[in-house]
């Protein structure tokens, strides 16, 4: 309760300070709009549905791409951890591609797929796939071998051991890899949306881009705020439950 109050007061002061700076007219109001105008933009864009529409388009790309990354990245990570051959081929390749900043995939995606949904999905997948794969691989390698030995004496077979012992034992690594992957995917998707107009859907990045084109600073700041809030919500909804579970079971401080 007290902590919530601190948070509210802090942000109220932040906005108040912003309003004061605006009223002092140090900068042009075109460059520093009032928080009230930004609020008005958010309300209007909320009412006419543009903000919701753009959010849905962006989130759909992000979630589908991210889901595909997990579906592909997790098993591949298991493979590279288990088989020397996969480690020396796929593992090395992933490590290399992981070092590539994910926005660098955008030009290639556009040339291959054009200004389409496929290009967006490709960028999201390339952003998150490798960190999920590498985190899974890492996690599996750090599982104490004694877990598998104990499981085997209890009658656990090959597959059972993989799914019921090694995979859950590497959860701390997998969750942090998934979180990192989410961050990369989110950043690269925003980059792509700001960078190019996609004919099949108008996302938050485009909204941000057109804010600049129209010199509408209230729109630019408003969209940025929405992007921040989505990032925070994603953290709470997608990762917080996992982190709480890890904390409760492993007793690790997060």
């Amino acid at each position, binding site marked *: 309760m007290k902590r919530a109050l601190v948070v509210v007061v802090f942000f109220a002061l932040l906005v108040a300070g912003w309003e004061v700076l605006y009223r002092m007219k140090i900068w042009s109001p075109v460059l520093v709009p009032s928080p009230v105008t930004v609020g008005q933009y958010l309300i209007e864009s909320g009412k006419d549905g543009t903000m919701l529409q753009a959010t849905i388009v962006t989130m759909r790309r992000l979630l589908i791409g991210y889901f595909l990354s997990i579906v592909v990245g997790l098993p591949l990570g298991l493979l590279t951890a288990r088989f020397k051959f996969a480690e020396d081929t796929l593992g090395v390749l992933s490590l290399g591609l992981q070092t590539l900043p994910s926005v660098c995939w955008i030009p290639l995606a556009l040339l291959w797929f054009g200004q389409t949904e496929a290009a967006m999905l490709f960028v999201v997948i390339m952003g998150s796939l490798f960190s999920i794969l590498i985190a899974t691989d890492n996690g599996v390698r750090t599982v*104490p071998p*004694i*877990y598998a*030995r*104990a*499981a*085997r*004496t*209890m*009658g*656990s077979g090959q597959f*059972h051991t993989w799914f*019921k*012992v090694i995979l*859950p*034992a590497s*959860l701390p690594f997998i969750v942090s890899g998934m979180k990192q992957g989410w961050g990369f995917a989110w950043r690269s998707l925003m980059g792509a949306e700001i960078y190019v107009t996609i004919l099949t859907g108008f996302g938050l990045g485009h909204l941000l881009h057109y804010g600049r084109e129209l010199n509408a600073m209230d729109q630019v700041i408003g969209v940025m705020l929405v992007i921040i809030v989505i990032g925070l919500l994603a953290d709470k909804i997608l990762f917080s439950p996992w982190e709480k579970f890890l904390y*409760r*079971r*492993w*007793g690790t401080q997060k």
Partner: protein
Amino acid sequence: MTLEQELQNVAPEKLVVENVSKTFRQRRTIVHALDNVSLNVREGEFVCLVGPSGCGKSTLLNIIAGLEFPDSGRVVADGKPVTGPGRERMMMFQEPALFPWLDVLDNLMFGLKLKSNLNNRERREVAQFYLKLVGLEKFIHANIHELSGGMKQRVALARALAPNPRVLLMDEPFAALDALTREQLYGDIQGIWEKRRKTIIFVTHNVREAACLGDRVVLFSPHPGRIREEFQIDLPRPRDINTVELAKHASAIRGALKQHLVSEEAEVPE
């Protein structure tokens, strides 16, 4: 079974180790962990394997468990050669090896869920029974990291007992615990052994511990790992590790151990 055995009609041994040898190749050296080791264990017997580190006693236990395989020789359990791990021979390690992503109950349920002849209600009952046996029924939903070292090892014992193995293989299970907890567990394990009538093979480097727990103490010596001597311990149970009679047995074993180590050093040119 040979004709001779058939005619004599002897009860088959619970566990027979026949001429087992095992060497490990490291980068430059070859370690003869076990050299032609044979051992018979009767049903319900409590056998302690004792010896200095590197004498192959843990390797032998792993081979009996089916986690490792001998270079030559074989292990026969209940008349069937061991070809891999199985829940009729449950293993307990020096580390508890409990699964941190499961709570205490689910750790016990792990092995029970692999037994298809029980339904979930029965499995739960079995798990609760064994938790009670080790005195931890109050901690049924505790997380593993919340338990002390001794409690963890108790849960590990309950987990090993829950699927009702006939043979329990214990690899220095109390070595990492403090002396007080350890003495409590000596009492617990003897009580459980008498109640549940298990065959137990217990590996330790602590001679006194071996004399306290075993019906028979098998003395190993290293390089190469061989069985040197066997001692019958016929003290009444439950035994207290601090009694004088037990100390006498222990010192006899310790004396033999030292003697073998000295003659060992004389054999190895260095």
